[in-house]
């Protein structure tokens, strides 16, 4: 190794220590200097990855903080609620920083051979903030809160195939399902499914805000902010900060200013328009994490002209996704390939042919379908995401080259999801991240799903979906999802312009492991228990 190489390695090790580069980049650069992979791994663990330190009060500025939010897990919707949920409450399972599935309150789990019965073993050291031990009854009551006739929980649809939940003993919970579901342990990471203390009558106490998570709420008000302190004896690893302050800052400019002036230590959702300027500040680190949150444009496959697969394919080919990612997402996104499965989810099929902008092919497909000079209306609204209407206008320009006229219809922001989505034949939608492809496909692509937004019915796809649900062998499952992805890309009724990145910032003295869970912003919304002050 030359002296220059040593210098370079020092520099990248330094960059990794301060969190400027990820582990993956670190390995890349280190190997480029001629190091072997194993030597580079050793260097990462010994010198680059900083050791967590305890202490300090971590102040987070958060967007999407509404005064009308509550602790009711059935109505969790805003980032404020979801971040708080991962901080003062706990789940059965969680998504680790390397995107694998780990245990939270559950220490281990196993499925029956046909994946229709799942047994979770609870940790014996998990406690609520008032000192009570977390037992199987608490888990059952917390799950039943989302089930049954009376429930108004938004997670009700997620648990419809759960028939019964029983507790053979205080530390074991058994889920009996109506059919196979190999993804049940993944489903338990859903943000609604927090564990609350059970009341004697089998209901749960969500009002008090007592949870079994790493931090305990000391005071707070939704839409203003919360103060929390460490829950001593928390069952997990981490929780390095002594105390937390979550501050509601809905205005993007105010949030960034607070980060720049040091009034907060980290913020959610950085405004992409000013991202480049913010990155120039040496006191600020920006994390840019690819996610499974997608922007979609469903076309109703039972409505002319979208009932013709050639027309659908022509519309897919008439979009220049790279330009949309560059101009609308300011580079913080990943072009879609029209199957709703992101690289941030497990079983991602690598190496499938990417749909690219090809107006000539689109034109010839339209000719074949006898639909030359196609004119369609595309509904959009600015509330879907910042830039949604611009994206549709840009798409309309792309489509002109293929002889397609797209009229962009700007719908009112208010009530978009009740009046336009699922009702207008071609519209624009933003989807939150779901943990696995099965959850996503079952929710919005299964033929009889309530949210089958493109009204797409493909027998082979639905058959594979059923097989995938019951398959416990990972290799076979990956094969199934690969075929489903191809079918959705070639036949499906949904255009996916891009997957959004989560972009959030922190002061340079806030450190993390270099790997971030991609399920939510801020390290899967677990920054409070995973990050630390240098």
């Amino acid at each position, binding site marked *: 190794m030359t002296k220059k190489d040593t210098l370079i390695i020092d520099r990248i090790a330094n960059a990794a220590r301060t969190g400027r580069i990820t582990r993956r980049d670190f390995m890349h650069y280190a190997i480029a200097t001629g190091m072997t992979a194993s030597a580079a791994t050793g260097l990462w663990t010994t010198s680059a990855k900083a050791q967590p330190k305890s202490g300090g009060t971590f102040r987070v*500025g958060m967007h999407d903080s*509404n*005064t*009308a*939010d*509550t602790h009711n897990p059935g*109505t969790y*919707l805003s980032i404020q609620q979801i971040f708080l949920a991962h901080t003062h409450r706990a789940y059965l399972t969680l998504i680790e920083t390397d995107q694998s599935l780990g245990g939270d309150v559950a220490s281990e789990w196993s499925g029956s051979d046909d994946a229709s019965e799942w047994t979770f073993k609870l940790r014996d050291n998990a406690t609520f903030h008032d000192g009570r031990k977390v037992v199987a009854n608490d888990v059952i009551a917390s799950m039943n809160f989302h089930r049954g006739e*009376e*429930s*108004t*929980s*938004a*997670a*009700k*649809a997620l648990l419809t195939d759960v028939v019964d939940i029983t507790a053979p003993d205080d530390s074991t919970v058994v889920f009996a399902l109506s059919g196979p579901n190999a993804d049940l342990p993944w489903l338990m990471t859903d943000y609604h499914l927090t564990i609350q203390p059970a009341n004697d009558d089998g209901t749960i106490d969500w009002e008090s805000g007592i949870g079994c998570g790493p931090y305990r709420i000391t*005071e707070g*008000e*939704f*839409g*203003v*902010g919360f103060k929390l302190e460490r829950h001593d004896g928390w069952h997990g690893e981490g929780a390095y900060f002594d105390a937390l302050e979550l*501050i*509601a*800052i*809905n*205005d993007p*400019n*105010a949030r960034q*200013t*607070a980060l*720049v*002036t040091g*009034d*907060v230590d980290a913020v959610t959702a950085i405004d992409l328009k000013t991202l480049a300027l913010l990155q120039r500040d040496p006191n600020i680190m920006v994390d840019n994490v690819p996610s499974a949150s997608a922007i979609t444009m469903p076309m109703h496959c039972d409505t002319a002209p979208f009932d013709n697969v050639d027309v659908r394919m022509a519309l897919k080919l008439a979009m220049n996704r790279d330009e949309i990612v560059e101009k609308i997402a300011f580079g913080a996104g990943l072009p879609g390939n029209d199957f709703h499965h992101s690289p941030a989810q497990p079983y991602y099929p690598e190496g499938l042919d990417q749909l690219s902008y090809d107006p000539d092919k689109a034109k010839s497909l339209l000719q074949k379908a006898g639909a030359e000079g196609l004119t369609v209306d595309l509904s959009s609204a600015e509330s879907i995401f910042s830039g949604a209407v611009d994206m549709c206008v840009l798409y309309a320009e792309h489509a002109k080259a293929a002889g397609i006229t797209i009229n962009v219809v700007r719908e*009112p922001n*208010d*009530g978009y*999801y*009740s*009046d336009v989505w699922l009702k207008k034949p071609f519209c624009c939608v933003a989807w*939150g991240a779901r943990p696995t492809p099965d959850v996503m496909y079952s929710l919005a692509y299964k033929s009889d799903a*309530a949210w089958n937004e493109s009204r797409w019915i493909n027998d082979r796809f639905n058959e594979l979906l059923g097989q995938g649900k019951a398959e416990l062998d990972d290799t076979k499952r990956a094969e199934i999802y690969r075929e489903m992805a191809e079918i959705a890309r070639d036949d499906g009724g949904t255009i996916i312009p891009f997957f959004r990145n989560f972009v959030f910032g922190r002061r340079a003295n806030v450190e993390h492991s270099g790997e971030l869970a991609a399920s939510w912003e801020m390290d899967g919304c677990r920054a409070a228990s995973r990050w630390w002050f240098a």
Partner: protein
Amino acid sequence: MGDLVGLVARRLGLGLVTLFVVSILIFFAVELLPGDIAEAVLGQGATEETVTALREQLGLDRPAPIRYLDWLAGAVTGDFGVSLVSGERVSAAIGERFVNTLFLATYAAVIAVPISILLGVIVALLRNSIFDRVANVLTLTSISSPEFFLGYILILYLAVRTSMFPAIASLGSDMTLVELLHRTFLPALTLVLVVTAHMMRMTRAAIINLLASPYIEMARLKGTPPWKVIVKHALPNAWAPIINVVALNLAYLITGVVLVEVVFVYPGIGQLLVDAVAKRDFPIVQACCLIFAATFILLNLAADVGSILTNPRLRHPK
């Protein structure tokens, strides 16, 4: 003086009628918004089943006029109901935030009112001088810029560049008054800049208007110095329009601060109202709007009473 008491009583009675009409307008305006509270609460997670269940729980399946009368029956006995979304009592949800809003408005008013009246008198005295022009240009510039823009400019120079004041005004429960005043200085200053021009220009105009009157000419002829002419002779006659414009601006300090609250992350009533409208949380919207309406009614009444008290001709009508 008996007339004055009668006037106040009459105006308060009319104010109640106004509030009643406002409450009807607000209720039906909220009803007219597309979507409803059940859908807003459940968001994208709403299915037909859960929406229907939630509607039933909240009593939204009953016709609108019945729900309004229900609310009215509670309101006349002082019970403004509970938030439909969080289930919290409206008084509890609004109470602390309204106090915060009042605090910020008072802070701004205490600075803005004396400064603008004083400035108004000075520019009337030095009218058409350089000082007059500069003061006019500066105050008119600040009133012509949107509040959030002024806020950002102040943040840039006083928080980011010089770190004299914090950029966000979030409040803690254990702050001393000095800390509180320091923390909320930038939002208060923004409000001061927004309301100063109006009050200052009105003071100047009212005084200059009087300067052409024969009695002022008389005062001048007998050799009274210019400042005395204005303060002793012109100002007492100019109070009525000045008080009116001050009252209007005070009302604005309470009702028009949403943008300032957002920019400075101040937990006031404006943000609460915006969130409540987004969620169709009718009891909160209604209570906030009634507070705003009552603020206008009371301040207008105060302005009229003030004009009468400062004007002997109105106090003793022929």
